[in-house]
């Protein structure tokens, strides 16, 4: 019936804005129209005021930075360990035999259940947040990277071998660049999880950060601040996603996933 012409970037941005506008409109109707009590659904403008209040209190930027910092460190540690391990699992039968079952076991442990244990080991400071994020992303990421490396067509490595490449050169010049688009996707997905686990950890025990901010707001029934915290986390997620997509476009412009 119809073909699907590619939407231009401006067109797509317009559609995205439209969906946000629709949510905002429904929210406004429900709150300003008095359908839902202020206690349960704050008015949009009071959420904006809550942002201003928290900024005046000096917690908006410092709490945001604390959370961003925790995600970056915890997740980077996981990446630094998981990418080489994934490469190893994908290319060594013995490596897969040794590591894969252990990782499969570990990744089914809900990381949330490890929060009490990590509190015991690391206290409520940044170290515990790093640990939770690491535990929540490392195992899955190692398996995802292994899959991405295994998805590089075998004949690429074989072609390189008949052009004179050694095993080490095949790793460096074929497998790693070949797996990079997949690995970029894996990174983008797991950084999202890192945010989730961080907020959980901060809700349980912390003395700064966005999860902590939301928890405190709940204690004071400051629903406008809760919403402000949620909006902020959402915006940070959007920004992260955008950053990764831009980085993918810059790092792997050759990928079939990137439009020419």
């Amino acid at each position, binding site marked *: 019936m119809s073909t699907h012409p590619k939407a231009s970037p401006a067109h797509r941005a317009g559609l995205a804005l439209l969906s946000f506008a629709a949510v905002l409109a429904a929210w406004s109707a429900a709150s300003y129209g008095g359908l839902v009590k202020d206690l349960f659904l704050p008015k949009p403008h009071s959420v904006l005021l809550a942002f201003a209040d928290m900024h005046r209190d000096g917690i908006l930027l410092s709490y945001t930075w604390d959370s961003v910092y925790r995600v970056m460190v915890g997740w980077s540690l996981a990446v630094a360990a998981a990418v080489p391990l994934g490469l190893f699992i994908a290319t060594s039968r013995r490596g897969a035999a040794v590591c894969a079952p252990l990782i499969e076991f570990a990744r089914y442990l809900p990381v949330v259940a490890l929060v009490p244990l990590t509190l015991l080991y690391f206290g409520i400071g940044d170290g515990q947040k790093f640990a939770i994020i690491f535990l929540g992303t490392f195992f899955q990421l190692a398996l995802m990277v292994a899959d991405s490396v295994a998805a590089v067509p075998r*004949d690429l490595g074989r072609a390189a071998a008949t052009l004179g490449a050694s095993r080490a050169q095949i790793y460096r010049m074929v497998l790693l660049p070949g797996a990079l688009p997949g690995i970029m996707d894996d990174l983008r997905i797991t950084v999202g999880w890192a945010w989730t686990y961080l907020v959980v950890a901060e809700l349980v025990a912390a003395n700064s950060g966005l999860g902590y901010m939301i928890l405190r707001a709940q204690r004071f029934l400051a629903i406008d601040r809760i919403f402000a915290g949620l909006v902020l986390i959402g915006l940070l997620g959007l920004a992260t996603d955008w950053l990764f997509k831009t980085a993918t476009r810059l790092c792997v412009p050759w990928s079939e996933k990137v439009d020419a």
Partner: protein
Amino acid sequence: MSALLEIRDLRKDFSGAAGPVTALEGIDLDVAEGELAVIVGPSGCGKSTLLNIVAGLEHGTGGEARIDGRPITGPGADRGMVFQSYTLFPWLSVRENVEFGLRIKGVPKDERAETARRYLGLVGLADFENALPKELSGGMKQRVAIARVLANQPRMLLMDEPFGALDAQTRLVLQELLLGIRAQERSTVLFITHDIDEAILLADNVYVMSRRPGRLKARIPVDIPRPRDHRVTVSADFAAVKARIMELLWEEITA
């Protein structure tokens, strides 16, 4: 003088799901310097396995294979392979793909680029050196793959159904291109196909392989004079050779 490639009593056993499988048995094959040898056989006969053993990507379980008198122990730049699947590195430009082997050898940048341009000219893609593989058609990708192997100046070119995934017209064009390149570069080629017309058009010698376990059951010399092009495929000489090969293959297909 001994042949460039010598294979003696080569054997290959696999452990398959339903017990041990003999893929190759009693393979004897000599390919002389400058010869274009083509192996045809029914699918699953082990012809790709044979080529992979020559490439050093697989190992025989008996007998031996020698190149330049030295036993083949693993892959090397002296035996460049063109695959049926597209194996250009998608993150490298066309020219960088052709330079790949030279980069590994440590050839200086300018020299690399010059060599790559020469071979891209040879396969008719001089204007595409900066294109990415994803911008090329299947036939163009295989042209680049051929240039990439040639630029490395291997002792021998191994081709595993390189035109098998292409449409009939493109295949003809590339067959003629290969004939032209071979005449110019004096390359030694071991070529695998299941397309009898392709085999006869290209070959000095066609080897017919039997069903599993794969053996070379006959060598058919093709004396059709060179230079050849697609017109020879309708000549009487061609038909006579084809009839012989068909006969031999038919026994394998229907046995």
